[in-house]
């Protein structure tokens, strides 16, 4: 191994990255774009669900109930519908996701029969949102219901017994405001790095083959290891820069809490980059053309990292066979690490298992990558 030859390769690669505006764009603007897109787009919070109302009584009580929906951040009253046909049309057209129907005898049955019901017609196309919306609606209605009971009891001088005997006092840790953004964004950092790292490094060897410069490179005394390290060192630097850039956007723009240490963040980023760059490099060696290599790099990093890393979709809730599969996705470990560093301020002692998993991956991929390239034309 000659440091001189390695430096020659690295310096050449840096010049080429600098002159190839396409690589530079991928390296610098894709993180910003992806952080923005996913940061804004992939919010799992359900708020401002549009609600239509069909108040068939128009009483004080029915208006009280509807006001509570109006006051909730989870619902927006978007209008009232006169009859069932209008209601169906409103749901069909997507004007509202929930339609509340207050029956004409609402206040009377509430007073006389001691109980009444309100019908909620829910658009179940998106089952997850529908479930959450139903739960919120039930919460609003049971709140109203409890207040009614309290009033009723107080009127009869039973105020003391009226209070609920048991209550949960929740205290949320790590993501105090229960913002899905704080949960998702640290994972996006992992995704951006996996994608950009693999994409950029997948072009390195393929570019030499495609431009016909590989033949001359092979004819020189440079060793395969020097080519690999020399080519990947610049991208390693860019990867670390991207990690810092993404973290800055996460904290500075999306206000995700950052409770860990910078050393921890960059240290684990370095480990993850070894895996990611190694994968891209192996793809590049095997495909020998830039288009094919970048397509494969996209395919093998984007889908598994999006779906199986747990960056947005919790791994605990996946079916058992899929859960087993996630252990193969190296992004999974880094997502776990990043979430713990950002939200919990975790140190190395808390993250031994995922860090060890990444070390194993880095060693294995590194060994494969070092053997992948042979100095032969065919």
């Amino acid at each position, binding site marked *: 191994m*000659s440091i*001189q*030859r390695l*430096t*020659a*390769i690295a*310096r*050449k690669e840096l*010049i*080429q990255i600098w*002159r*190839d505006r396409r690589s530079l764009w991928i390296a610098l603007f894709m993180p910003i774009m992806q952080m923005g897109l996913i940061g804004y787009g992939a919010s799992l919070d359900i708020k401002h669900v549009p609600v239509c109302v069909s108040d068939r009584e128009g009483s004080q009580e029915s208006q009280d109930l509807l006001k509570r929906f109006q006051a909730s951040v989870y619902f927006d009253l978007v209008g009232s519908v006169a009859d069932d046909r209008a209601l169906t049309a409103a749901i069909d057209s997507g004007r509202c996701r929930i339609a509340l129907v207050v029956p004409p005898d609402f206040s009377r049955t509430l007073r006389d029969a001691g109980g009444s019901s309100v019908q909620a017609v829910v658009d179940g196309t998106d089952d997850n949102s529908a479930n959450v919306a139903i739960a919120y609606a039930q919460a609003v209605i049971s709140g109203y219901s409890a207040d009614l009971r309290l009033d009723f009891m107080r009127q009869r001088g039973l105020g003391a017994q009226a209070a609920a005997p048991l209550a949960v006092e929740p205290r949320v840790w790590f993501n105090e405001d229960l913002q899905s953004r704080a949960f998702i964004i640290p994972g996006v950092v992992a995704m951006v790095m996996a994608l950009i790292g693999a994409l950029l490094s997948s072009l390195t060897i393929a570019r030499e083959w495609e*431009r*016909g*410069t*590989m*033949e*001359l*490179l*092979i*004819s*020189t*005394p*440079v*060793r395969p290891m020097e080519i690999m390290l020399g080519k990947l060192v610049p991208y390693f630097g860019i990867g670390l820069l991207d990690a810092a850039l993404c973290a800055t956007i996460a904290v500075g723009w999306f206000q995700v809490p950052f409770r860990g240490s910078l050393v921890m963040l960059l240290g684990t980023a370095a480990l993850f980059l070894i895996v990611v760059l190694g994968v891209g490099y192996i793809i590049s060696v095997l495909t020998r053309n830039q288009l094919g290599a970048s397509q494969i790099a996209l395919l093998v990093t984007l889908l598994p990292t999006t779906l199986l890393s747990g960056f947005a979709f919790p791994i605990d809730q996946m079916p058992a066979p899929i859960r087993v599969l996630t252990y193969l996705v190296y992004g999974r470990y880094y997502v776990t690490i990043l979430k713990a560093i950002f939200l919990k301020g975790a140190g190395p002692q808390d993250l031994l298992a995922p860090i060890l998993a990444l070390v194993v991956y880095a060693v294995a991929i590194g060994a494969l990558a070092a053997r992948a390239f042979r*100095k*032969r*034309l*065919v």
Partner: protein
Amino acid sequence: MIASSSVGASVVVERLVKRFGAFTAVDDVSFGVDPGEIMGFLGPNGAGKSTLIRMLCGLLRPSSGRALIAGLDVARDPEAVRQHIGYMSQRFSLYADLTVLENLRFFGGLYGVEGREFEARSAWALEMAGLLDRKSALTSELASGWKQRLALGCAVLHRPPILFLDEPTSGVDPIARRAFWELIQQMAATGVTVFVSTHYMDEAEYCHRLALMDRGRLVGLGAPEELRHHALRGALLEMDCEPVGAALEALQAAPGVFDAAVFGSRLHVVVASADAASAELPAYLGARGVRCTRIRAIEPSLEDVFVQQLGAAARQSRGAP
């Protein structure tokens, strides 16, 4: 380590074979080259010249046989061999997005030519290539003649004792080609062993020795003079005949004629005896409706030799079971 001076080294090729699947690109080729020799490989496209050179540079592994470069077996110790050679591939393969100086610096780094040695060598290479005032220009902006000389500069930056040039002048204008060959001659004069492949016949005359290749086989080997005078059996006639097509067909079947081929608008005919053929052929052709206006004996060119050698090789392979 870099070779401290440009002292040439010998090359020995023994029964070298390269197969790609069922196709044999280089078929049982053997020869030896002395230090300081310019060895030319001549042959049509697909003759196996590039494959042979690539094997000698360690870019391709031979299917069988071996090649010794400066006493080192290429297949066993390719990296040691690579330090002793300079290579210019058929396709221009410097980095187009690097400047002239950046390319030189890159190859300097790979060959361990740095510091004051690099300053001296790159200055020499820039002057040789005529690029002293364009060292900051992107390589992609250079005309092909300059690209070619820059590639040569990069290939010899580390003073290799052996130089492999695979069709170095294809696509280069005649004046630039001439200048390029002058450089090659100068390098050989300092003792560098040069391997060069070409399909330009006129370039073959610059070589000390020629290897004629056809379909993977070596069909002739010797100095250009030698090949011209001894490879051709019999004598060569140049004939002006009408119509050319019928004349060619008739001549190929005529008695005392070994071979006939079209050269431009004329016919070159290899015959056993120039005098006898000049006397007999007009009547023979006349009987077959061909009229000849001129017949004269000429000195064979390398092209004549080559055409005849290829024909002989083809007949041999057709005749073999």
